[in-house]
């Protein structure tokens, strides 16, 4: 194995291949606080890519309700129980992962630490995951803000990892990472359906197609990316929770790059299970109403600080303005800036793509309308 730098771990780690970063790395930020689990993203993806025979149970994009929901079943819990010692420490003021990644804890004879889901694990997406887990005592009530009752929605696509577990697992080299944008693809001509990638991806975002006997996965809608457009699950997001772009490594972070700003500068968006060691490139703004004892395990040691920063967004016009640009255009915003009360999204040449006021004007309508001499209920 080679030694590579994983900035999300704050250290080097072992990987099957030497470090080879793409010219650009596709990345995204999902704001979990805005997701309403309408599943429009799921259907946008499903109808675009996976409506064929053998793809029936396949959801390249899914939304699950945490803590109980997971698709395929227990994708996260199974791997967490396999991984030993997921401890984080601190060196020179920076968080450093002290445990082992899936590459460093690969059992003898295996390329990575992994497990294989079965048919049943894919059979019930979302079923029962938001049901009450117990009875309600007579006279019980919920205090607001409530501490003990919480859930949130986690939208998931392939993370197009810098160090993909699927790519490392494939003994045939059928999976590759595009040098131009870092999108991870399964070569459908070369794949022989060994399902090693299904076993090796800790996020379980590679799926076996029993009709073609090959494995398939999210392609980040690369035909759209090549045209400067966001993937279908981004463009169709009702809650406007997503922004697509390209991320730099922390040492090359650019403040006018929306992804860099949220991930590296504000540190409000965090990787999903960074301790797995894949350097995933979909970043999440953690839910602010969930006990961080839970979300810290999921998003790493920066969770508490990220929640604090997000809660302070009303006092932070730059952050507020950038959050307002989420879902404001189908085009990929390579740059952004705030001008007064407006957020402006731009292409890589600085040409304006979209212009969004992040403070909407407030109109107060009198209850009695003098013009029509009528009293109205002043509902929003």
């Amino acid at each position, binding site marked *: 194995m080679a030694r590579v730098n994983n900035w999300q771990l704050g250290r080097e780690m072992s990987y099957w291949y030497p470090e080879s970063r793409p010219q650009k790395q596709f990345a995204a930020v999902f704001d979990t606080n805005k997701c309403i689990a309408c599943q429009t993203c799921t259907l946008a993806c499903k109808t675009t890519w996976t409506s*064929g*025979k053998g793809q*029936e149970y396949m959801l390249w994009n899914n939304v699950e309700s945490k803590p109980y929901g997971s698709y395929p079943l227990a994708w996260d819990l199974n791997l967490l129980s396999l991984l030993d010692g997921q401890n984080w420490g601190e060196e020179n003021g920076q968080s450093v992962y002290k445990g082992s990644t899936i590459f460093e804890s690969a059992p003898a004879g295996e390329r990575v630490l992994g497990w294989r889901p079965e048919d049943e694990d894919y059979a019930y997406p979302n079923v029962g995951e938001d049901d009450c887990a117990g009875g309600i005592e007579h006279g019980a009530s919920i205090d607001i803000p409530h501490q003990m009752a919480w859930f949130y929605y986690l939208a998931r696509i392939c993370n197009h990892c810098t160090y993909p577990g699927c790519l490392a697992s494939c003994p045939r*080299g059928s999976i590759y990472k595009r040098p131009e944008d870092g999108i991870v693809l399964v070569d459908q*001509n070369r794949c022989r359906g060994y*399902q090693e990638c299904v076993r090796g991806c800790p996020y379980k975002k590679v799926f076996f197609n029993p*009709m073609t006997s090959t494995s398939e996965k999210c392609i980040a809608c690369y035909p759209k990316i090549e045209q400067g457009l966001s993937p279908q699950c981004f463009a169709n997001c009702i809650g406007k929770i997503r922004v697509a772009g390209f991320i730099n490594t922390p040492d090359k972070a650019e403040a006018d790059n929306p992804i860099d700003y949220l991930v590296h500068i504000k540190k409000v968006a965090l990787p999903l299970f960074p301790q797995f060691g894949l350097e995933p490139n979909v970043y999440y703004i953690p839910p602010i109403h969930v006990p961080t004892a839970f979300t810290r395990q999921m998003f790493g040691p920066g969770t508490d600080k990220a929640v604090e920063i997000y809660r302070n967004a009303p006092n932070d016009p730059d952050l507020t303005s950038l959050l307002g640009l989420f879902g404001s255009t189908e085009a990929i915003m390579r740059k952004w800036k705030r001008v007064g009360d407006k957020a402006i999204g731009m292409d890589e040449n600085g040409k304006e793509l979209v212009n969004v006021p992040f403070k909407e004007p407030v109109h107060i309508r009198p209850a009695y309308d003098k013009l029509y001499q009528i009293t109205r209920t002043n509902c929003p």
Partner: protein
Amino acid sequence: MRFVTSLTILALLCATSCNKVQVPTPEVNVAQVKEISLDPNAAVWDAVSLHASKMILQDLVEPRLLEPSTSEVMVKAITNGSEIAFRLEWLDESQSDMPGPRHFIDGCAVQLPSKVDPNVPAPQMGEVGKTVEISYWRADWQAIVEGRADNINAIYPNASIDHYPAEAKPLENNPQAQAETAARYAPARALGNRRSGPRDQPVEDLIAEGPSTLSPAPNAVSKGKGVKTLKGWAVVISRPMPAGFSAATPSQIAFAVWEGSHIEVGARKMRTGWVPMILK
């Protein structure tokens, strides 16, 4: 233990395809016959000498198989001068021929050097500049050839499907549009991945120059047929006679077996080293 296994297989062979116990030969002797049969139960196989090939774990390259399964494969070989056929039989009580997540398929393969030469390639799928030719039989392809439908209900009988775009009402009288729409949602088939489409043979032709280099052979030339026996599989694989192979110039052959229920797939397999192959 291996001796007991050999006796078991020999007894089974005796019960299924011959009238007397055969003593295995240390090499694969290829008998010359008038006609080749792809039927493992055909009489042509009865009088052919038997080779019992000991199998070893593929534990050289990751992912490795660390726990042994199939201990040996019983081999017979015949030729009609232009075609050569191999009959492989091994123990595997479970029948694994349904693809799916964590479902793996029973299979077997024969491997020959591309050139008949005393300086053989590495037995582990050849090496750079020394290609091997592989004929690979799979139980699911056998089921498809024998009529199992190419749809999800053949695998999951109770599956309920709302709609496939290729079966939309406006396309129902336009087979070409249906095929084009179906191909959009089956990229492996659209690209011509021979592994992914409907099949007319249960055997696939492959070439390799070492581990991880397995590729489709330029032409599909192998044929075959497998039948489930009481305790395992009996499979016949037929392919063109290797150029240069004759009574005066023997060659080498190697075998591999995958037991699907034992999570054997790809590199996770039981294999043999090279075995001498002699034309009788």
